[in-house]
Every structure is written in structure tokens, then in C-alpha cells.
């Protein structure tokens, strides 16, 4: 039964990589057979790693290049005229030596390289253009700033309004109308104190009379109901207290239930920005 738990070849690999799980490592400590196998494997690997690296002959690279045709390609490349890539490297000052040599020898490529240098200089000297003044304002009017404050909203609205002569005219007209009406009201009220006071008294008197008339009608209707007398007889102070307590308890339970329903969810983990 114990043999079923011996380390297999894959577990020996894990052991060599230092990734053998803890329970299997403890098996190694108790099992002589597995420990010997692991130590022997370690020793073989160490010997393999210690093997010296052997250098090929001195002309190895040349021989390989000749076989794959690169020597010819390098030679041909040195003779070829400049490509766009060469010009890039030349402008950056990183042209390889063989290509530099070609440039020195080839008047055609020299002319090309000179033209390239002049062109790049002209392109880099191109001016930048300005948009019309007020560009930032026009952009910001259309941008929704996150977490915008009331002050920010007001400023943005005011900026938008102040640039349009039509809205400025309309706002001024509405403002003048409102201000004029208020001033006229105040002036009229100052000269007609008695009228205002008489109207106030009349309204108050009639409102009171209407209120008490409504209360009297409601009471009379209540007394005419068939259940009124029996309900009145059954109302004892104890029952009133019990009904009051029940109403308070129901109200409390309702408030608690509502609070639970309306509670905001607890803050979760921050969402990664896409």
C-alpha cells in the first residue's frame, strides 16, 4: 500500500523545480526509496549542468552564412542604394558602418540623403496654427464636468448665456419686467395700507366662520351614524390607551420596514477602470 504513494517521474520534476507540494515533501522525509531516487536525480542534473560548452571552429559563422546565402546578401546590401529604412537610420544617426561606407562612395545616395535631411528639417519647422480665440470656452460649454458643483453649473450657464446677444437681451427684458412689477407692487402697497388691512380682516373673519361651520357639519353627520352611540358607550380609558399603544407600535414597525427597504447598498469593491 505504501508503494502507491512513492514519487512518480512528474513529481520528481516538481521536486527538482522546488514545486513539490508539502504533503509529498513530508513523504520524502519518511520514505528511504523516494529520497534515494530524488537525490540521484539531483546529482545527475547537477552533472549535466556542469558540462562544458564547446566552441565551434573559428570560421563557423562564415560557413553558416555562406550556406544560407547571407554573405552574398550582406555584400549585395552594401552595394545597394539607400532605402527608406536607411534614410531613417541616417537621419537618426544610427546607420550601420557598411551603409555609411556606401553613402561615402555613392553620389546618388548622397544627393538623396541631403534632400531627405532638408525635407525633414522643413517638415519639423512647419508652424502650428491657432484656432479662433475662445476655443477653450466653446469646448468647455459642451463638456460635462464630472461631480459638477452648483457654482460650476451656474458659471457655465452664465458663460453660455453671456455669449449669446439674444439670450442676454431676453434675460435683461425678463429681469426688467420682474423688477418693475415688484417696485410697482411695493409703491402701491405703501400708499394703500388701509385697503390691504381691511381686506386682510375680511378674509380672516370669513375663513374662521367657514372653518367652524365645517366642524359643526362633520360632528352632526358623525352623531347621526347608527354605530355612533354603541361606539361611544364602549370607549373606556383602558381601551383608548390600548388602541393608542397599538397605533404607536404599528407606526414604529412601519418606519423600520421602510428604512430597511430604502437603505443604500454597502460600498462594494472599486470597479476597475476600463
Amino acid at each position, binding site marked *: 500500500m505504501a508503494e502507491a504513494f512513492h514519487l512518480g517521474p512528474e513529481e520528481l520534476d516538481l521536486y527538482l523545480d522546488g514545486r513539490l507540494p508539502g504533503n509529498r515533501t513530508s513523504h520524502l522525509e519518511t520514505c528511504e526509496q523516494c529520497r534515494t531516487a530524488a537525490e540521484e536525480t539531483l546529482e545527475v542534473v547537477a552533472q549535466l549542468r556542469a558540462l562544458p560548452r564547446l566552441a565551434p571552429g573559428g570560421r563557423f559563422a562564415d560557413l553558416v552564412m555562406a550556406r544560407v546565402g547571407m554573405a552574398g546578401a550582406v555584400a549585395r546590401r552594401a552595394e545597394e542604394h539607400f532605402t527608406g529604412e536607411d534614410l531613417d537610420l541616417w537621419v537618426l544617426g544610427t546607420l550601420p558602418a557598411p551603409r555609411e561606407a556606401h553613402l561615402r562612395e555613392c553620389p546618388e545616395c548622397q544627393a538623396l540623403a541631403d534632400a531627405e535631411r532638408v525635407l*525633414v528639417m522643413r517638415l519639423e519647422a512647419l508652424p502650428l496654427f491657432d484656432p479662433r480665440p475662445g*476655443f477653450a470656452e466653446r469646448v468647455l460649454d459642451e*463638456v460635462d464636468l464630472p461631480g459638477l458643483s452648483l457654482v460650476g453649473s451656474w458659471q457655465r450657464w452664465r458663460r453660455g448665456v453671456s455669449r449669446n446677444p439674444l439670450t442676454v437681451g431676453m434675460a435683461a427684458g425678463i429681469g426688467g419686467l420682474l423688477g418693475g412689477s415688484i417696485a410697482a407692487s411695493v409703491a402701491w402697497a405703501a400708499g394703500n395700507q388701509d385697503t390691504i388691512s381691511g381686506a386682510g380682516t375680511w378674509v380672516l373673519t370669513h375663513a374662521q366662520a367657514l372653518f367652524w361651520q365645517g366642524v359643526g357639519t362633520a360632528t352632526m353627520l358623525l352623531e347621526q351614524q347608527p354605530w355612533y352611540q354603541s361606539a361611544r358607550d364602549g370607549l373606556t380609558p383602558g381601551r383608548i390607551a390600548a388602541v393608542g399603544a397599538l397605533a404607536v407600535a404599528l407606526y414604529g414597525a412601519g418606519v423600520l420596514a421602510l428604512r430597511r427597504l430604502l437603505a443604500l447598498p454597502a460600498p462594494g469593491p472599486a470597479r476597475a477602470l476600463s
Partner: protein
Amino acid sequence: MTDQEIVALAREGREAAYRELIRRYERPVFSLILRMVRDRQLAEDLAQETFIKALNAIASYRPEFKFSSWIFKIANNAAIDQLRRREVDTLSIDGAPNATSADDIEATALQVGDKGETPLAELEARELGTHIERAISRLRPEYRSCIMLRHVEGLAYEEIAQLLDLPLGTVKTYIHRARHELRDMLAHLRD
């Protein structure tokens, strides 16, 4: 302050950070688009659209990429889309295509900046600018955006490839061909 730091502030809703991003990139973005579409009013609208799109989506910007690459990508896409929708063939260096009066032509023409040179040097610089702007405008749009991003904005080939969603080899080919065409078009200036 780096672009990334400013973007972080913009994400918090700081208006000053938005303004700074616009200040840094309004000229490069506008210039790129203007040289692509060659119409000042259209370029202005597209540059505005570019910034509005970028700043409204600032929350989705991924900080591992350069902000400049991101905004140039949006700008280039806007310009290319516009060119696909409308063929803008007239050189705006001579005024917008729809400019008819002398005032319109003056208002919409590309203005090469005065760098405080002598009148003769300035005349030569304007002439040179005119020739090179004309030559650039004759390039295919994809060559034009590549050459502008490489030599005016100084982006690396790899960045341009990523920005334009093109293989690196294609970007190199476009730029080499563009320079070849520009050299040919400007050859008469060397004589």
C-alpha cells in the same frame, strides 16, 4: 505637471485641468486637422468635436497610453471620417473651397507664422511654407496623417502604428513613400 497628472485632476472634475489639457493640445490638434481637411472653419469644428469627445470620455481614458496619442487618434479619426464624407480638394492655403470674396479667402487661408525674420527671409519662409504646405496637401490622406504625426508632432513609428491601428510595416511604408513624394514635389526648390 505631466499629462497623466492633469488627466487625474480632470477626472475629479477640476475645470482648470480641462483648460490646461485644451491649452496644451489645441494648436497641435487644430494644426493636424487643418492640414488634413484644409478648411479653417471645418478644422475648427472638428478640433472642437475632438476635444469635446475626448474630455467627455475622460473617465474611460486608460492612463497606460499617452494622452497625446489618444487625442491625436480621435482627431485623426474625425478628419479621416470627414474626408470620407466630403471630398475637400481645394487647397485652403488659397482659402476655403467655398470662399469667393477676397475677404473670405483672406479669412480662411492658412497663415504661416511670422518668426521675426527679415522681410526677405520672411518672404522666403512664406514661399517655402506655401510650397511645402501645397506638397503635403497633395499627399494621400493616410500618408498625410502619418507624415504629420511623425515629423511635425515627433511621434515614434510604433506610436503612430498604435494610434492609427496600422501594422508597423505599413506605417513605415506610408512615411517612406510620403517623403519620397514630397522630395519629388519639392525637387525644383533645390535647384
